[in-house]
């Protein structure tokens, strides 16, 4: 239960952070750790959006610390590195957050900040799935589990690239959709257009990979137990394509960008779940 709560809080934290950035409310609280010098800041919608971001971050941090403590006690051997890494990354994330503000929100560091948060989300998901008692921690990258792990890594990279697109202000470098400058390939591939177009190319690759997985799960009996998850993943990637289009066509409307991230996290969660299920199946019948 604590694992689910932690993952849910980190999901909410990442999406809420995206909302705050989209609403340009990131400086709603100009000071830290207080907000406008108070524990409870004055009521103004943008101040409270940022204030709630901090509240969710605090709750997520406490939940992660409790979960990691629990897993350090439950895990054996090298697996203890997972909760330790989660807490270390959380501390790094907090330090990076401060550096991002102090250095004036540089694109690469801000992207790194997001990637660190995403890694914490992945580790929390791992600790939720493998509680160390009923489900001992395990790792596998062979057979279908390698496929799911690789696809998860691909979605992770796509999300990181999406963050880079956003923080370099390249979200509207191709201002039309599904075409880019009216064609399949933009005339000039450099600068922001290259960054934006790379995201679209990688997204197309993810789409094709997920479609292939769905087809394989339907046709190959060895993947039969993953059919429902593969179908859910395929529906999500279809939705993600549509939401990606909406992000461009609505000119980066904050709800569209937040939904884009939420669906990406959902896809990552499904792939991690498939990976964990496959590992358990391998353990039952190696």
């Amino acid at each position, binding site marked *: *239960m*604590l694992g*689910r*709560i932690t993952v*849910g809080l980190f999901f909410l934290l990442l999406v809420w952070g995206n*909302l705050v950035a*989209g*609403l*340009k*409310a990131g400086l709603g609280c100009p000071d830290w750790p207080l907000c406008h010098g108070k524990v409870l800041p004055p009521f103004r*919608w*943008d101040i409270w*959006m940022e204030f709630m971001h901090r509240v969710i971050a605090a709750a997520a941090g406490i*939940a992660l610390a*409790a979960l990691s403590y629990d897993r350090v006690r439950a895990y054996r051997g090298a697996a203890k590195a997972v909760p330790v890494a989660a807490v270390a990354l959380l501390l790094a994330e907090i330090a990076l957050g401060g550096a991002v503000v102090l250095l004036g929100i540089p694109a690469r560091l801000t992207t790194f900040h997001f990637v660190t948060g995403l890694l914490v989300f992945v580790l929390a998901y791992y600790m939720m799935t493998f509680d160390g008692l009923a489900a001992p921690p395990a790792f596998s990258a062979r057979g279908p589990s390698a496929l799911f792990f690789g696809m998860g890594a691909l979605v992770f990279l796509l999300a990181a690239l999406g963050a880079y697109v956003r923080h370099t202000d390249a979200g509207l470098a191709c201002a039309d959709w599904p075409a880019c400058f009216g064609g399949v390939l933009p005339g000039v591939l450099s600068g922001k257009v290259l960054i934006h177009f790379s995201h679209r190319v990688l997204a197309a690759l993810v789409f094709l990979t997920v479609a292939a997985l769905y087809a394989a799960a339907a046709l190959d009996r060895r993947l039969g137990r993953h059919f429902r998850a593969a179908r859910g993943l395929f529906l999500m990637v279809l939705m993600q394509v549509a939401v990606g289009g*909406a992000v461009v*066509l*609505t000119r980066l*409307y*904050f*709800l569209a960008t937040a939904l884009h991230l939420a669906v990406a996290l959902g896809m990552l969660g499904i792939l991690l779940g498939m990976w964990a299920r496959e590992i358990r199946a391998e353990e039952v019948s190696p």
Partner: protein
Amino acid sequence: MGPRDPRGGGVAIDAPALAREAGPDGERAGAGRVSSALVISKPGIAVGVAVAGLAGMALAGKGLPDGRTAALGLGCIVAAAAGAAIVNGLFDAPLDSRMRRLSGRVAALRTVGERGALGLSLVLIAAALAVSFLCLNAIAALLILAAVLSYSLLYTLFFKRRSPYGTIPGGVPGALPVLVGYAAVSGRIGLPGLILFFVMLLWQPPHFWTLALKYQEDYRAAGIPAMPVALGEPYTRILIFVYAVALLPLSTALWVFGYCSGFFAGAAALLWVCFVRSCYRNAVATRRFGKAFGASIVYMMGLLAAVIVDVAAR
């Protein structure tokens, strides 16, 4: 804020198991209460009414609303929906405890405690009313109040328990978020918002009846005169199909009156064909009511998304 009920299985919490897991560890018990509070607030419905509210906002502003209005309006709608859902759960607890489908929600309510749940619901509803009145406008606040009262009192305590047709007026609170969103942007109630309001009103009976058909034994056990229990399965199946068919002219009225483009009309027609086909195949010709229920959700979410996209792209 309507009579819709999400399927319990997906979010069901086994309270005894929860208690076992929680044990003496205070943090885990706290986590269980947080999770249970989420379950009794019916987050699926809250998300659905938020999308409806956004569609109302888009229609009123002839485009996507600004960040302030969207954040405040949707926040108020979600908070009010969650608060009203908890009040509904409190009033319905004796009935819900006789329904297997809702065992998880009953266990969650037990975990949170009646006083805790009541306190949470009052805080959510009061916050929604205060913020909407102070930061949006009085019309939006009044509509939120109407939605909360009509769902948690009128529908829960009266319509639901007395008549198989209670679902029809009971759809009003579920459709009001469209008008809340519309009023949040424009400060009044306009025709495009009213059309979408009536579309949602017309959609909710078949949506709920497919669920009532699937879990009719639960409703019978609880003594709730849902349509299949009171008037039988054949009558309910016919009504579902009739209501589903009637959705086409009403939904395309947004295009006929010029509030949405041909793109919306095409999308509405396509979604309607899929929904009616699913109703016929799964609720009339066979008894796969769960699939028809799922199709009804896809239909309404698709229709609301089509409104938002169409208006935003114009």
